[in-house]
């Protein structure tokens, strides 16, 4: 094999990107409280210790509620926005869609601070509902991007054909459009869920005394003794993220295959 400069660069790049993540499971199963080489032995004790912490249960419950709600809301808004932008023309369409997609590139810190100031000024109590609010904001652009590609690949004459065959606009949506974009919807739900589950800054700023998983993990890092069990939790989260994103990609590709269009690139 030829080792050109570019090849070396690629390998270094990938090592830098993924090696730290590989350390998570390594130390999660290492029989030592100290995170350092050499490894001393195999254990699953950290997983048991992790689960024994009741604070984790609460954080997990909060995270699941937040991520599910954010995923459903963001996807619902995404369906409306994607349908509108792919099928209709309206004044200032480009500008409006730009604003919808803006949170994608807006620093999360800015979003979190701005929301916090507004919510406090309005006298809203911080809770998991305020986290959901923030997460919907950052998940919606992802949902719109995924769903736009699903709606875009839908041949307009399919709708006209259903309408021509006697269906109403509503039943056409239910019988034709929805089944054909369903893979996109599932994909959008899963990706929004994953983004919300991993998100830290907004959850930290807007959560009040409610912690999500990410905030819980950050808190636990203050105690060196807790680090191995956090490694265990991290291992589980990495696996979960990979599984969810793989399922999302599977559905996205199936959707493209169904509508018989070419793949124009997704998130994986």
């Amino acid at each position, binding site marked *: 094999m030829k080792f050109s400069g570019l090849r070396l660069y690629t390998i270094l790049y990938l090592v830098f990107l993924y090696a730290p993540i590989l350390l998570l499971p390594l130390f999660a199963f290492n029989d030592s409280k100290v995170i350092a080489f050499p490894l001393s032995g195999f254990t699953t004790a950290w997983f048991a210790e992790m689960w024994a912490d009741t604070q984790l249960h609460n954080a997990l419950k909060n995270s699941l509620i937040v991520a599910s709600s954010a995923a459903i809301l963001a996807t619902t808004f995404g369906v409306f926005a994607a349908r509108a932008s792919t099928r209709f023309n309206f004044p200032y369409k480009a500008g409006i869609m730009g604003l919808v997609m803006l949170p994608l590139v807006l620093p999360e810190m800015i979003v979190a601070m701005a929301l916090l100031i507004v919510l406090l000024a309005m006298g809203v109590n911080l809770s998991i509902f305020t986290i959901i609010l923030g997460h919907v904001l950052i998940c919606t652009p992802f949902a719109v991007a995924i769903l736009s590609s699903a709606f875009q690949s839908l041949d307009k004459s399919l709708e006209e*054909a259903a309408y021509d065959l006697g269906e109403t606009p509503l039943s056409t949506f239910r019988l*034709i459009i929805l089944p054909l974009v369903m893979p996109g919807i599932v994909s959008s739900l899963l990706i929004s869920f994953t983004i919300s589950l991993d998100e830290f800054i907004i959850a930290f700023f807007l959560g009040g005394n409610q912690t999500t998983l990410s905030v819980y993990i950050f808190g636990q890092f203050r105690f060196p003794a807790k680090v191995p069990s956090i490694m265990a939790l991290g291992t589980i989260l990495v696996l979960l993220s990979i599984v969810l994103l793989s399922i999302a990609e599977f559905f996205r590709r199936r959707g493209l295959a169904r509508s018989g269009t070419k793949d124009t690139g997704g998130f994986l």
Partner: protein
Amino acid sequence: MAAPGARPAQTMIEFRDVHKYYGDYHALRGITATIRAGEFFSLLGPSGCGKTTLLRTIAGFEGISSGVVLIDGKDVAAVPANKRPTNMVFQSYAIFPHLTVEQNVGFGLRREGLSKEALAARVAEALEMVGLKGYGARAAHALSGGQRQRVALARALILKPKVLLLDEPLSALDKKMREQMQVELIRLQRQVGITFILVTHDQEEALVMSDRIAVMFEGEIAQLADPETLYRRPNSKKVADFIGTMNFLPASILSESDGQIEVEAKGFGRVTLAADQAPGAATGGEAMVGFRPETLTILFDGQQATDRETMATIEEVVYYGDMTYYDVKLDGMDSATRISMRNVFGRPVLDIGTRTRIAWSPGALVLFR
């Protein structure tokens, strides 16, 4: 072309001064026409001429800006597409990819509340009609282009519409398949007796399939006639050019009286034309006579002209296998015109420069003025 006669002459579709604007763009400019019940009618024209827009106003997918569209005597302005007695075969076929062939074909019957058995029987009948017997359980996305076409036909015809609308249904098929489907569509139309309205940009397809054809340019119907009249007596140079090939020669009108037009044309000399040989309205432009390439015939040794005869020089020869095209310069003419000859076994293809006798007939000339 379908056999004439035996057709009820009632009107199925009527357009009365239909206009359609897209913003400033005037897509339909005063369409007035009638389409008879049970006929195979084609809207023929180049892309952007408004033929598809006109078809979609019948389906109800496009509203009109002014005028009236009547379907079977009823003004359909307030009738939405899903309530109109029309069904459409789309250019992309619009087969629902997530359903089976059976579910696609039976889609429109869902609302009729048929029993499972009755529904299955109707679907099977429709599939058999289009030559897809036994394909019901197939997934729609696994079909070939020709099969999709047939599913789309079965799906539209199963509802027994008063009018079947076909939006360039054959344009995506290869030549062989297209010719086969043309024949099948004609057979199907005779079998079901439903009014078929076909949109096409292919003049040959329109000539082959239609009882009558409306030739459209820039949002207007230029000529509406049966295929033979369109071909033999086009009412403008534009129509003549769009349908087949026509040679044009400058001419001058000498006199006109009693349905007789006396014309002087280069190469042909002085000829008398009947009134129906000048089907177009006078435009005030330079007068021309036109003739189709096959109306002039090269006379070989021993052959006699049945009407007129003149001498010509062959300037170019294009051999097509079954046909040969000759560019010939008739004596007295400034430039060459194209004529076509069917090749007959044992008869030579003539060389460039050959002097030959040509048979022609004043009856084949069309006058444009």
